């Protein structure tokens, strides 16, 4: 399945760099965001164009404050857009919805609920016609996938940060969104836990192939996870500065990526961009 798409992709990318519309999952067109401030309007993003294909994993890097979170929250529908449009599968979005799952930087679990209840909160909402047992099975399946089979009934407030973020991942995948949006999901974790969670994330993703857009500050993380790394220019009026295709084959292991000859070439490209 995935090989066919890959073959197709090489043929269909047209000269102007745009993908044919039936391949595009997420389309940002002339996106603009203005924050009114006491000192006048602040234009964070302007003329931002980005297309993300189905089953693609895109990471986004850029300097702090350039507007990455702003862009992601607009895609999620949590932040109104000031101009341009955002469409998912050709349909313009209207507000937030479970077709665009979000994993926030803070795990944002309801601390008074158990891990299972947190996942069920979404599952119940998205699969209202499934039986109770079926919904339980879905929630438990994803919790097992993130390695929390022993913590179903632990209160979220009793879990460590890393475990909470695992629940966050399970919750996001369990509602089977079309697009998964991740805003520095591992930014608050120590590097060891971060590595573990990257592995878990990519393992689930390999199975589910949900189109993913992830913001990160970590260049290695950006390369390891992504099909393409999108670099944003610094604000104000930030836009897409450059896009780097990462051509490692999947499934990837950390070791194979680090040992690959192209790894340092990619890394240098990204760091050169950021240091400008």
């Amino acid at each position, binding site marked *: 399945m995935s090989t066919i798409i890959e073959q197709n992709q090489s043929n269909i990318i047209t000269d102007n760099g745009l993908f044919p519309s039936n391949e595009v999952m997420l389309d940002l067109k002339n996106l603009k965001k203005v924050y009114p401030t006491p000192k006048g309007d602040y234009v964070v993003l302007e003329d931002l164009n980005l297309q993300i294909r189905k089953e693609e994993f895109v990471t986004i890097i850029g300097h702090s404050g350039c507007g990455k979170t702003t862009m992601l929250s607009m895609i999620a*529908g949590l932040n109104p857009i000031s101009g341009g449009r955002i469409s998912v599968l050709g349909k313009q979005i209207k507000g*937030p919805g*479970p077709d665009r*799952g979000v994993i926030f930087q803070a795990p*944002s679990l*309801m601390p008074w609920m158990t891990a299972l209840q947190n996942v069920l909160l979404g599952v119940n*909402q*998205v699969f209202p016609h499934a039986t109770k047992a079926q919904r339980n099975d879905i929630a438990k399946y994803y919790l097992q996938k993130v390695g929390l089979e022993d913590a179903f009934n632990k209160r979220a*407030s009793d879990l460590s940060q890393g475990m909470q973020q695992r629940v966050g991942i399970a919750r996001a995948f369990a509602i089977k969104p079309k697009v998964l949006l991740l805003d520095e999901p591992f930014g608050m974790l120590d590097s060891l836990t971060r590595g573990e969670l990257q592995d878990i994330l990519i393992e689930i993703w390999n199975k589910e192939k949900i189109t993913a857009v992830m913001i990160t500050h970590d260049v290695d993380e950006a390369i390891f996870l992504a099909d393409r790394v999108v670099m944003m220019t610094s604000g104000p009026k930030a836009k897409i500065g450059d896009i780097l295709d990462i051509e490692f084959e999947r499934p990837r292991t950390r070791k194979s990526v680090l040992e690959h000859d192209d790894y340092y070439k990619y890394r240098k490209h990204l760091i050169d961009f950021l240091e400008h």
Partner: protein
Amino acid sequence: MKQSLTLGKVTKFIGLGFLSTIKDLFTGNIDKEDFKTLLRKTIVPLASILLFIGLWHMGAKALYNKEADFKIEKALTDQGQAAADAMEACIASGDVSCKPNTLPSPSQVWDSYKSLLRDHNIIAADKAAFKEKTAALNEKRVADGLDEITYTGRPSFVDQIFRSLKTVFAGFLLALLIAVPLGIFIGLSPTLKSAFNWFIQIFKPVSPVVWYLLVFMIVKTLLIDSNEDSSFTISFISVGLCSMWATLVNTAMGVSSVDKDYINVAKVLKLGSFQKIFKVVLPSSLPLIFTGLKITLSVAWMVLIAIELLAQSPGLGLFVWEEFQNGANDSNAKIIVAMFVIGIIGFLLDRLMLTIQNWVSFDKTDAI
């Protein structure tokens, strides 16, 4: 071991942690550090209580002497030596007619406490006898569709306590039923918030007396054609209205300050308003709501006394007022007994709320 662990947990949970330390002292498993804690948590409070009673005793004695001296002095200047001697003898005999009427000493208060209990036992026995006597008659009256004959004798001190508790709980319940839902609506809607803000700001500081008068005006008219005693209704409504503000403000604040991330989760999942309120907003504002309820209950108990007094509604407030008016030998001592009872019950109510709060709240950091 297991038992002592649970006891420790329970006592700590209800905020009486020092009890388990006392238990350790008796069971002998205690080390130096524990001993210091014990000293701080039990010996020191005990010592301060003793000191308090001692100071009280001396103060009461000084006041007594001052008033006695004044009376004798006055008799001397007004009526001469003979009258002064008679006054001195009278005071020494403890006769009501000339006894200095001032702050009672701890032992007098203790005696009054015992006499109030005795009085209660007598009344309780009397009540039981009355019930027995009228049991057969009442059965017949009920069968005939008539009202039962009820005991109409004087209420005992303990009865007054229970009536006060009944009033305060009715008032508290009223406050809860008004303030929590209203607070939720105000917290959820900025429009309602600005609509109600002036209302809250103006009515919050109004004194219990004024609330009482307001409620009195309204309830009196509403119940004009009922010949039932409206004093209970008036006092519990006044108590509820006086005390609900803390809950209203805290609920509104809790609801409007729910973590943005939780709200975003609710938005992304497209939870309906019902789900959003009951699964996200309410649980997350529960700690603040309970802080409000705790304040409400203590305010309710505090204003209750004044309101019962105004409303002439049976209870501790009325008890205090009647004792003050009555001016019997031990009236002052009884008032002090009532003061302690009011204080201790207030403390216990506070602990009760704290226990419930710890129990329902996800946030296990010690609430104060």
